[in-house]
């Protein structure tokens, strides 16, 4: 049965599934960053979801989507180093803001708005355009997909966003990095998908209650 919006429990479940996906793929994410960066992306993302989980557990009383996403934002922004951690934090912060602005439950419209605002913040801060081989290459199509399906129930819209994100991930493999550490490698990172983009795809893909490994979506070879 499709819900018109995620309630607090469903949002928590989404985040818990994202956490499990990160744990399940940490080694693969690390392997990607080893080849295109400095090899800490898996650890950074795992630290982020771990810190977020601890914050969610500490929250008292019934927690709505805005609070859960806000806790994710604070954990990623405050506790995680590297480039990607705080950028994920900005995405969660924008999602949390949008959720807070649209009543107790998390509608697809507010998901779309949050993703768009998060994308804008990430681009302001990191100055990356689509095609620069960064997580923007997954987030931009995902945000666009959410906007296009903002009248669908969130689970459905998120599945579509995940599809768009994975598409973006696959495209990053053929790109040459212009931002971030991978940019110092020039052509040598060509053929390897961008780890940050994979992280973004995992986030949207986790709303379906499934814990993936990457093999289904990207070929690491």
């Amino acid at each position, binding site marked *: 049965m499709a819900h018109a919006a995620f309630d607090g429990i469903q949002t928590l479940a989404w985040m818990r599934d994202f956490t499990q996906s990160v744990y399940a793929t940490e080694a693969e994410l690390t392997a990607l960053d080893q080849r295109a960066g400095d090899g800490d992306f898996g650890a950074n993302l795992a630290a982020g979801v771990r810190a977020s989980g601890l914050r969610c557990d500490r929250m008292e009383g019934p927690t709505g989507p805005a609070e859960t996403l806000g806790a994710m934002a604070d954990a990623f*922004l405050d*506790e995680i180093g590297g480039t990607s951690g705080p950028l994920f934090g900005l995405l969660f912060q924008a999602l949390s803001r949008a959720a807070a602005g649209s009543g107790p439950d998390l509608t697809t419209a507010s998901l779309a708005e949050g993703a768009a605002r998060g994308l804008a913040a990430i681009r302001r801060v990191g100055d990356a355009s689509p095609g620069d081989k960064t997580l923007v290459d997954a987030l931009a199509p995902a945000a666009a997909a959410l906007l296009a399906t903002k009248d669908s129930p969130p689970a459905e819209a998120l599945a579509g966003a995940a599809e768009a994100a994975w598409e973006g991930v696959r495209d990053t493999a053929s790109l040459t990095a212009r931002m971030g550490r991978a940019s110092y490698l020039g052509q040598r990172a060509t053929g390897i998908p961008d780890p940050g983009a994979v992280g973004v795809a995992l986030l949207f893909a986790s709303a379906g209650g499934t814990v993936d490994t990457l093999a289904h979506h990207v070929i690491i070879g």
Partner: protein
Amino acid sequence: MARYFENCAGELASDALSGFARAHADLVGYDAADGFVTALHTAPARTVGLLSGGGAGHEPLHAGYVGAGMLDAACPGRIFASPHNRQIFRASLAVARPEGVLHVVKNYTGDRINFGIAAERLADAGVACGRVLVDDDLASDSEEIAAGRRGTGATLLVEKVLGGAADRGMGLGGLVDLGTSVAARCRTLAVASAAHHAPADGEPAFALPPGELEYGVGIHGERADRTRSWQPLGALVEDMVGALLDALRPGPEEPVVALVNGLGAVTSLELYGIFGELDRVLEARRVRLVRHLVGNYVTALDMRGFSLTLMVADRVVLDFYDAPVRTPALSW
């Protein structure tokens, strides 16, 4: 090899910050949890909090310039590494004024991103935040360097001018415009005769053949794009000043402020010798040198080198520069 005096390699910067805060407890407060220092005394007229930060290893930048008339807060990162956005965000909240907070940011990718994230968080929290980007390094002024010129010695001049303006109650927009235009009229060039020693192992960050100079070094142990053979000081300073003036082209009436800056291990004897040559060259070129500083202001650990910064000012800028200041590293 020259091993650092420290307890353990990872804690050089944080131990230093806590020692600094104890040593200057009359001027600065210290947030140990979030790793930033704040000014204890600051002009009540300020409507904007002034904040800066960046990698450690450039002391006295930035913490040394926290105090009355200059910065309200500084966030040092670890050695040569950008501060975390959390430090910047928390420090900004701590010193924001009715019109918000202004970030003075040296142009490095890490600093831009981390200050940028903090700015996004501040916007989210409803605190207005402006940025002045300092990018004075002439050696990185090239079409090929997409990241743009690096920020170096001019930082403290920009901070001093903004501090003077903030003390007169200038608002956020005014400060952003002022800082941006001051930064645009500053250029720096740095040379080194020996690299800094890496704190991790005490070894020189790079080797220079004897009798060679690294011409156009950065402040993180980046090598310059060229090596030159040693020159007598007069000729070296003449070349450096020529390049700076070519980039800045001050008018004959425009007042110029100079900073002769040691990068760490160069002696005070040398710095004053350099100032003597600079003064001579500027006089010969009829440049109106109106103020100058000679000393270690923006360092690169114990690099054996120096930088020259020229700032083209006007009466208003000079007035803010001259305004009283009382910080651990700058006081008049």
